[in-house]
């Protein structure tokens, strides 16, 4: 009985208009913040490459521009160290090129095809997708099977350029691994090796014909000319933590470096998206902060109006926690309703653009993390409200 009596007494001066005003302002602020976060997460899936979003790191393949007189494109250890020291660089991987002659032979559609080729290798960490059989056992030497990862662009070149002009069948990624392949390697001294190989997968990130590092090391040691096995790399793959950062483009220009593909354009769009989202989140945050102050002012005004009653109740033996309870329940209730409505608004907004994402083949991000952020924000806001109310009530003891 005493709880309902205390509630009746202390809620008498509650201004429904003030509370509704707070709830509306807070709802608008929180909904903007959560919707912006959700939009950012969804849009990241569009702008981010290789399944990774713009929130995550991105990979850039860089090489030196070939000058008119200076045709040396190798990176020195100092240049690599300088790149590694840049704040936007997470990791640097070097392409190791083959220093021997190689010919790939295929038995395909009743014809034998062969072509001179080259190989490159990079640390496995930089692959977007590492095939299951991506290894080479140097102990087996020439008896081992060599897995190869091709740039997805090469398959497109074959299917849409080469195959149609030669009357060859087009191929799907899943079929290619089944085609038997021979790799003939010839060293500087005329020594030859004939090995089995297969195409283990395709990469959108790495624009080359890639083999495992173990194979490259073994083959260069056995077939490269003395001293050539450890030549400096001409291409580097960079893992960058802020794709689209204008500083990256400035650095590349300053050092006359080229970036493969349109990665920088993509990155710039992602960077712009990040700025726009930050602005929208900022606007939402400002509205939320103002709403927070409206609630604090309303509650403090209410406490001021009920100051005498609070004091009288505490004179009767009620503890500050007991007399603060109706206000805490009010805050928790209003904030819960605000959160639920903001979550609904975010879910509805996300649904509006999800069909557009699905249409371009992107799976929308889960809404759960955005809601978790919203719940955390409201929990923090409520905690600050409640602590302030408790302090204020204790002052009236």
């Amino acid at each position, binding site marked *: *009985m*005493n709880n309902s*009596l*205390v509630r*009746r*007494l202390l809620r*008498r001066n509650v201004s429904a208009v003030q509370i509704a005003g707070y709830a509306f302002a807070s709802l608008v602020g929180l909904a903007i913040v959560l919707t912006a976060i959700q939009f950012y997460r969804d849009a990241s899936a569009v702008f981010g490459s290789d399944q990774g979003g713009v929130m995550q790191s991105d990979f850039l393949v860089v090489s030196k521009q070939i000058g008119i007189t200076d045709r040396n494109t190798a990176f020195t250890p100092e240049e690599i160290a300088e790149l590694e020291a840049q704040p936007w660089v997470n990791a640097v991987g070097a392409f190791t090129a083959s220093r021997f002659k190689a010919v790939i032979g295929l038995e395909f559609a009743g014809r034998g095809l062969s072509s001179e080729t080259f190989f490159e290798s990079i640390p496995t960490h930089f692959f977007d997708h590492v095939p299951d059989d991506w290894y080479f056992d140097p102990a087996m030497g020439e008896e081992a099977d060599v897995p190869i990862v091709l740039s997805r662009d090469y398959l497109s070149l074959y299917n849409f350029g080469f195959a149609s002009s030669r009357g060859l069948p087009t191929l799907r990624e899943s079929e290619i691994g089944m085609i038997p392949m021979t790799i003939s390697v010839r060293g500087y001294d005329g020594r030859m090796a004939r090995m089995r190989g297969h195409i283990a997968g395709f990469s959108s990130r790495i624009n080359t014909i890639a083999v495992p590092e173990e194979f490259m090391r073994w083959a260069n040691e056995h077939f490269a000319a003395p001293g050539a096995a450890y030549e400096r790399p001409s291409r580097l793959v960079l893992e960058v933590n802020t794709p689209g950062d204008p500083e990256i483009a400035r650095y590349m220009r300053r050092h006359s470096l080229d970036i493969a593909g349109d990665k920088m354009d993509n990155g710039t769009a992602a960077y712009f998206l990040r700025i726009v989202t930050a602005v929208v989140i900022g606007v939402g945050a400002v509205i939320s902060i103002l709403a927070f102050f409206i609630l604090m002012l309303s509650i403090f005004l209410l406490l001021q109006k009920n100051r005498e*009653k609070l004091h*009288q*109740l*505490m*004179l*009767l*033996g*009620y*503890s*500050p926690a007991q007399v603060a309870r109706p206000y805490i329940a009010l805050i928790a209730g209003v904030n819960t309703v605000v959160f639920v409505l903001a979550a609904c608004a975010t879910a509805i907004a996300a649904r509006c653009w999800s069909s557009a994402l699905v249409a371009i083949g992107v799976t929308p991000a889960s809404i759960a993390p955005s809601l978790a952020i919203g719940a955390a924000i409201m929990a923090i806001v409520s905690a600050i409200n409640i602590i302030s109310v408790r302090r204020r009530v*204790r002052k009236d*003891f």
Partner: protein
Amino acid sequence: MIERITLARTLPAVFAGCEKDAPVCFSELWLHDVELTRGQRYLIHAESGTGKSSLCSFIYGNRRDYHGRILFDGRDTRLLDIAGWCALRRRSLALLPQEMRLFPELTVMENIMLKNSLTDFRSEHEIAQMLDELEIGAKASSKAAILSIGQQQRVAIVRALCQPFDFLLLDEPVSHLDSRNNAAAAAMIEREAAAQGAAIVATSVGNHLALTDYTLIKL
């Protein structure tokens, strides 16, 4: 349980610097060492403005603007925290403030239940009997706002008795009661205090609570 309350050279801060002037120089309490013992009855007689309501507030922990010390069984009350005071106000100290402090928007019964449900000390039936005894049983469902001052005083007396106590502080409890109602109120207060073995500390500016036996202290 509090066995004794000691006022050790207590003086309202407002009287600081006037120690040799009236009313402090004539007081038997301010700047003296006075001990109030559980089970005894005290009538503190004072003129207006001599600090009797302040005295009740100091003992009840409602105000701290005094010099000297107030001790509960030898322990300085300034060391009590909020939880300590809350516990004392539910178990050991009962107060009837001069201004009654009823909630006008609540009924008589609700005002009393506000205290009683905190202590769970009396049944609703007992409370109704006590209201009848003070001839305000018919007002149980009336809003406190429409009661006369005398009726409010009787409601506040019943409310103050709805808890266990060692010391019952009554600040001018019968100032607006006639002699018949005064006697009825005094009889109830003495009976309840005796049942708990508690002390009664009543203040008065003239219309004394009709206690049968008491120690008079001039403030």
